[in-house]
């Protein structure tokens, strides 16, 4: 991947190198990439969000469903950073707990989508023929359900609750992975090392996991990162419609819906959970871009 760059950099140094010298330079170049990645603004922002969500129980000044009728509908103040809702629950605490839930939903859904999608995509791309045709026809049908409709229908079938919501959002993201991985596998299949492996009699699935998967792993990581953001957005949308977790669970989509009735007198109930979704997806999207730059320099330069 970085071979031409290495050679160019070395030639500029004035030290003529042969192709054989490249492996030696590899470890030296690896480290800065990961350090640059970890120290990028988007990665730091993401780490902060994850820490806030992970330690919600420690940071949150109030309980997730701690009701206090005396302090109902209070605007943001030092006691309640993001105000309180109709039951007097602290919005800031609920946003933190909601963040934990949203990140878990997003990551689980992306994991489900990635696992199924990558397996289907690799099988379709590597084996080709009838397996490919059947898999792609099914994917075509799934893609005929626009946007989140597929997730909505799956929730309808399984019943509206949190676990089914995760499954639904995960399954709805399978077609995206499958198409990406299939097209990558198609070209990897034609490479010499795969032919060589096949000629020496290595079994198909061994080739797929040893040779095909490592070569498409980076693309899948980048796609999955963006998919987590999309999954959080979709899950929050379904939560808003009442198709996800049930009250009094602190879930961002549900919290935005909660504030709808009192929007005129208490904007903060709606504003902060939605803002949290916006910030989280923005940070994940920009981290995805940083990741693309780190993992695939060729693509990011275009």
């Amino acid at each position, binding site marked *: 991947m970085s071979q031409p760059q290495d050679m160019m950099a070395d030639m500029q140094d004035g030290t003529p190198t042969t192709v054989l010298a490249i492996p030696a330079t590899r470890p030296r170049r690896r480290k800065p990439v990961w350090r640059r990645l970890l120290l990028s603004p988007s990665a730091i922002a993401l780490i902060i969000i994850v820490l806030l969500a992970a330690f919600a129980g420690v940071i949150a000044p109030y309980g997730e469903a701690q009701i206090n009728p005396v302090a109902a509908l209070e605007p943001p103040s030092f006691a309640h950073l993001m105000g309180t809702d109709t039951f007097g629950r602290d919005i800031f605490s609920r946003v933190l707990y909601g963040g934990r839930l949203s990140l878990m939903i997003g990551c689980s859904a992306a994991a489900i989508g990635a696992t199924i999608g990558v397996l289907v995509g690799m099988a379709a791309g590597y084996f080709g023929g009838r397996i490919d045709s059947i898999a792609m026809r099914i994917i075509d*049908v799934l893609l005929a*359900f626009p*946007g989140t*409709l597929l997730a909505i229908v799956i929730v*309808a079938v*399984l019943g509206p609750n949190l676990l089914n919501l995760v499954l639904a959002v995960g399954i709805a993201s399978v077609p995206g992975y499958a198409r990406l991985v299939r097209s990558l596998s198609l070209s990897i299949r034609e490479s010499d090392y795969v032919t060589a492996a096949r000629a020496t009699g290595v079994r198909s699935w061994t080739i797929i996991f040893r040779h095909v998967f490592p070569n498409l792993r980076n693309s899948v990581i980048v796609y999955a990162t963006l998919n987590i953001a999309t999954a959080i957005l979709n899950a929050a949308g379904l939560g808003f419609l*009442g*198709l996800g977790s049930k009250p009094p669970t602190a879930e961002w989509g549900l919290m935005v819906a909660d504030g709808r009735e009192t929007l005129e007198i208490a904007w903060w109930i709606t504003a902060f959970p*939605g803002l949290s979704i916006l910030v989280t997806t923005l940070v994940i999207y920009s981290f995805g871009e940083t990741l693309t730059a780190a993992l695939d320099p060729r693509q990011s330069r275009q």
Partner: protein
Amino acid sequence: MTRYALWRIGAVIPVLLGVTFAVFFMLHVLPLDPIQVMITQTSSGQAPSASATEQTIANLRRELGLDRPLYVQYASFLFKGLSGDLGISFRSHQPVVDLLLAQYPYTIRLALAGLLCAVVLGTTFGIIAGLMPGSLVDKFLLLVATLGIAAPSFWLGLMLIYFLAIVFPIFPVLGVGRPEAILLPALTLGLPGAAIIARLTRSNLAATMKEDFIVTARSKGLSRRLILLKHALPNVLLPVLTVIGLQFGNLMTGTVIVETVFSRPGIGRLGVDAILQSDYPIVQGFAVVLATTYVFVNLIIDLAYMWLDPRIRYA
């Protein structure tokens, strides 16, 4: 060209068959027994066994044809659907087709208004940014577009209501009857699409302005306006058309959320209510209608693309 068009039209049939089968399969085979659901629905909360004996269940099953093999059931569902019979709602006992048809125009009107917003705002700001890449205006618009993509539409809609209808009462919030009441919902629905279209238009235009034929046109002494309208835009806007087709799908499901946010009638609201009440015939009709609309819109976009792009037309 004609052959490709016919092939493209023909390709719709297996997809539609697949879509209807997927919906049919998911809603008939996987969930709880529809008879059980139906009995629980009609006996209003009573235990099913209290009101329905084995015999009545068996009779109902035969009456609805649920004792027949699956492929027979699917075929009958398909033929009934083609003749406009999508079953009877468990709850209201009205034909599902009537319920959907009553709501469909509201949703289509909203989707088209949203599409108009997305296309007009997206291309306008995309062209502005694309003409001055790297400028402050460009950077600002790019930031707004990124926010537009990352913001959840249900929240965006409520924030628009708060700022444009409550704090500064410019737009009306509710009232489906009045024509201006569609403005805010359409804006909410169209903004994410506008952001995507703007980004695409911007990068396409910025790249096209560096092409040889633009340099040639400029060296001929053509005015900037003429270069933009005659030479650049036809090349820039054609790929945008495909994105519009894809965006229309998001718009169709976006209506589900926007209808809830603005308390508007529509097929999305009907569908979500049906899911919450386990009214499967309506859910089935809702999913089939939305997916079919999407498949046909994409067909129209593809054919339009073919007709507009001479490279495909004469190939």
